[in-house]
């Protein structure tokens, strides 16, 4: 008989629309992070480092890159005979065939998967946070308190508390009440979207609430369990935790990695972050290249100058090109004599020679000011930029572009150019 004490369900179906063009072709958990990683590497590595060897990954939006990345789970040692990693897309049923309509609905549609492991506890994770956490310690806390549900929380500054789901607890961290994005928060303990449930309790709640539209943990399941008066506890986490939900927070989190001793340290031995390495060779630095305050992934060739930047794997940076405060993802080729400032370049982009990004007076983005802001320039995957182009701030380019697309060889600040079709 198969029996696992705790299995993890990782919600990786979301689009992450506030990452703009970065998630137009890939699900947010598959977006590159920190040079060689993808966001989902963090929860997956946390799982295996915590001894959780059975993980169901719920996918829905643009799953190709995610599926390829996960494969059979070799990089995380999640290739197991029993358990391991399983990708769980929505599937057709006799009746009620549906997409995953909400976080809890996705779990509801996979009750059979969870049942097959006969677990005591189920750990619910989301695939879009950067953090290192020992779920085993959280489970100990859950068991000690004889809780039915434990929610990981972190203290946030009081003035920011209104952006989060807030837990109100007694002195033993027992949850007495909770509020979603309260105007006047009564506590500063923000939910991190990480839950441990006793499976029997969660299973019952899912089945009772199945008919609700967009069944969600925060909106439906937690209130249901609370109303039943079952013990819920808040597990306080004080480490580094970053929601990389917006372009700016994504950029900031990357930039934090290049501090001398970053708060989030990838160089620690005891809690390694694993990823699928597509390239292995070392990086090459040509004579005349400059590299300072930066991290660089495998197989990249640097002929130009790189300052304060995060460079992925297999990237080429041409001669006399200057890159500052930027993120360049895997396999992007940048020509000679370019200048990039605060630019996020997605994977497999080709940039010509003599191009400039992030120059000119700042202007609000015309189409999506809530996405493209903070003077960041964003270039979508597989884009092609011809020679001699100047691109302003808060601008976005996606697709194969030719010189004719640029008036006077420039794309002013705040403009969006989409030649690739569907895009946010």
């Amino acid at each position, binding site marked *: 008989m198969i029996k696992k004490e705790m299995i993890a369900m990782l919600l990786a179906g979301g689009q992450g629309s506030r990452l703009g063009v970065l998630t137009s072709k890939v699900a947010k958990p598959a977006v590159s992070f*920190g*040079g*060689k990683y993808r966001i989902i590497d963090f929860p997956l590595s946390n799982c295996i480092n915590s001894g959780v060897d059975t993980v169901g990954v719920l996918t829905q939006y643009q799953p190709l890159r995610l599926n390829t990345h996960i494969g059979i789970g*070799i*990089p995380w040692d999640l290739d197991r005979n029993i358990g391991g990693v399983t990708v769980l897309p929505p599937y057709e049923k006799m009746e009620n065939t549906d997409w995953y309509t909400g976080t809890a609905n996705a779990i509801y549609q996979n009750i059979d998967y969870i049942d097959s492991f006969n677990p005591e506890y189920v750990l619910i994770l989301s695939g879009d946070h950067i953090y290192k956490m020992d779920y085993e310690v959280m489970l100990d806390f859950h068991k000690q308190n004889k809780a039915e549900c434990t929610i990981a929380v972190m203290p946030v500054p009081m003035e920011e508390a209104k952006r989060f789901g807030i837990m109100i607890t007694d002195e033993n961290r027992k949850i007495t009440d909770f509020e979603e994005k309260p105007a006047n928060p009564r506590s500063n303990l923000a939910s991190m979207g990480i839950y441990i449930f006793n499976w029997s309790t969660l299973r019952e709640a899912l089945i009772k609430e199945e008919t609700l539209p967009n069944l969600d943990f925060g909106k439906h399941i937690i209130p249901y369990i609370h109303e039943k008066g079952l013990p819920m506890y808040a597990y306080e986490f004080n480490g580094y935790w970053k929601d990389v939900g917006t372009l700016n927070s994504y950029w900031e989190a990357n930039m934090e990695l*290049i501090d*001398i001793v970053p708060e989030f340290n*990838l*160089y620690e031995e005891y809690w*390694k*972050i*694993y*990823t699928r*390495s597509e*390239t*292995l*060779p*070392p*990086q*090459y*630095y*040509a*004579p*005349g*290249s*400059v*590299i*300072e*305050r*930066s*991290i*660089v*992934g*495998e*197989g990249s*060739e640097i002929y130009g100058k*790189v300052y304060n930047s*995060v*460079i992925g794997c297999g990237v080429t940076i041409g001669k006399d090109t200057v890159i500052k405060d930027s993120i360049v993802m895997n396999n992007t080729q940048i020509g000679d004599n370019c200048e990039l400032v605060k630019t996020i370049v997605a994977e497999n982009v080709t940039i010509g020679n003599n191009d400039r990004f992030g120059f000119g007076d700042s202007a609000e983005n015309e189409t999506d000011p809530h996405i493209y802001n903070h003077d960041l320039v964003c270039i979508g995957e597989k884009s092609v930029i011809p020679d001699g182009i100047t691109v302003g701030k808060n601008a976005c380019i996606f697709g194969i572009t030719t010189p004719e697309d640029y008036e006077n060889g420039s794309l002013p600040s705040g403009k969006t150019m989409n030649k690739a079709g569907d895009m946010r």
Partner: protein
Amino acid sequence: MRAIGIILAGGNSHKMKELARKRAVGAMPIAGSYRAIDFALSNMSNSHIQKVAVFTQYNARSLNEHLSSSKWWDFGRKQGGLFVFTPAVTAENSLWFRGTADAIYQNLDFLKSSHEPYVVIASSDCIYKMDFNKVLEYHIEKKADITVVCRDMPEGENVERYGTIKMNEECRIEDFEEKPIVAKSNTISCGIYVIRRRLLIEMIERCAEEDRYDFVRDVLIRYKDQKRIFGYKIKDYWKNIATVEDYFNANMDFLKPEVRNYFFRQYPDIYSKVDDLPPAKFNVGAHVSNSLVSSGSIINGTVENSIIFRKTFIGTNCTIKNSIILNDVYIADNTYIENCIVESHGTIKANSYHKGENGIEIVFEDGERYQM
């Protein structure tokens, strides 16, 4: 593929000097992220050889660690796989491998229990890319008994540590000399052979009966007139790394764009064990020029014309010139290193000075490790 693979990784070379203390030549780190044996293993995998045996004996810890899982070279299959054979005590035999032929003899069951008609034998200490299928096709076309991969060395290069070959116009080998004092030819054997499995078993058994133990001397040279032994000449990059000088030069070759392009960017890839290290990091004060740097490294100083292997820490105000820093070395501040190979896991104290005056110096430092 109709062949199984054998990789001879038993050897030690005194020409590797202190570098051989820690490991077999096959486990020598190469080009920042690889081990020498990765090239033979990747070539076999890329040639669709599914069953490979590695014969090892000398200081095999490092090699065994590297080969702890076969999945990196895609040998983790139900059909075939990667086998590592060290000498074992049996009812008949309690000896070490007394030579390459003896190593094969002691593991003859591996050959006998296979069904593939051919065997590709390769050494673990060469840097090259090769499609063994092409050699096999040539072998069949020539109706050869044994095919030896060979290569012309540049005029004037010292070939006395290789086996030298003379071929007739048909490419049949007429003369084969092992480590000649005065070489009669500048065509050398690359240590890669294709042979029919049954013939190999037969010849190895006969060797054993006659108390002969060396594949080159007791099979190739002894039978060169009786058997049809052919040379398959290659022109691509190939380098043996079994001396300190060649090891150093082979690494430095990877600073050339055409070599990197050939090995790293052209199909097929070379595989290696994945180490899960974070990207290399460059702090303020880092100056890197014409160098390779591998993941997990943190650079605070100056690096020129050098190869920095994985997980190296280079302190502030250090200068590393024309050197190779092997895996997991900690170099404290204000250190100067030129023309050196720094042995892996070393810890170099602050304000040290190492310069290879006459050739390459091997730096062996086991200082106390400071916390990073």
